[in-house]
């Protein structure tokens, strides 16, 4: 049913202190209407206290083709996790 209006990604903050989380996307002629549409489509049941809308075209995303190059090298680097390091006996304040 879309008439070619731009796509916006919607982020909702469920309550104070939490981060905005991506909840979906919608079409709107501009950002102001997108915000109102988001209110109607994604916060009808008290899902949030704050909404961001971002033009989907403004998002630069990692490509699925680059998945291996981007993410795989992290797989065998266990020393990046704090659990890799043993805390010496008797060490304080760490």
């Amino acid at each position, binding site marked *: 049913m879309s008439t070619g209006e731009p796509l916006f990604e919607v982020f909702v903050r469920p309550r104070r202190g939490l981060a905005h989380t991506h909840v979906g996307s919608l079409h*709107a002629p501009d950002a102001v209407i997108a915000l109102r549409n988001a209110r*109607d489509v994604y916060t009808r049941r008290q899902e949030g206290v704050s909404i961001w809308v971002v033009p989907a075209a403004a998002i630069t995303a990692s490509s699925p083709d680059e998945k291996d190059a981007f993410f795989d090298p992290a797989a065998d680097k266990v020393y990046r996790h704090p659990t890799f390091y043993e805390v010496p006996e008797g060490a304080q304040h760490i």
Partner: protein
Amino acid sequence: MTPSPLDVVEYALRLGDDALVAAQRLADWSARAPEMEEDVALSNIALDQLGVARLLLTYAGEVEGAGRDEDALAYLRSDAEFRNCLLVELPNAGPAAAVGTPGDFGVTMAKLLALAAYQWLTYERLVASTDGHLAAVAAKARKESRYHLDHATQWVLRLGDGTEESHRRMQAAVDDLWPYTHELFATDELVGRLSEAGVAVDPAALRAPWLEIVEPVLAVATLDRPTDGWAPEGGRRGVHTEHLSYLLGEMQVLHRAHPGARW
């Protein structure tokens, strides 16, 4: 001075029927709005109106004390017993459109702008009503009306100051509906008595603040503010346009054919 219960019933029906008939008209857009997102928005607004209508009709039935509930009042009254303003019963395609003409989104937004501004101003003042029930309904409804007003404003701005075609149709919608806005502010002895008792909001006092809301929106939307002239009225006395009969026919058919039907 204690207001007469019959006056309160009548006043609650005026407010409630405005909301009920507006809800029925808006619901006609379900699955037919220009965009899926707008579909959800219009249905939300329709449900807001319906929610307020249910509270007011239920209250009218209780005060009346004749055993009529919200369903009896919504589904079993004839058009002459409805107390809504003419504005809300006008078809979505405009006052002069033939029956069955598909809705015009510009007309719906022009109508919503006029109605929501009026309802918001009413509810904002009705929260101070000496009638605790009406005050409580107004406290709930005013936030919803504020949003309806915002929604209509955003669209009138965009359609008025949009393309040549959207401007033309938005202007036509405002011109066609403007005469019907005068009835919103018409006062009579009943509201005179009730506003004196602190129960009702005198609509006559709302015209100036209403213009302060509506005129700047029209100006920014590059729309001409129509001149005041012909002012059809009669809705508050049950004298309606033919459009209400068709609307009620559709709204009431199920309940009349299957009394008490539930799903």
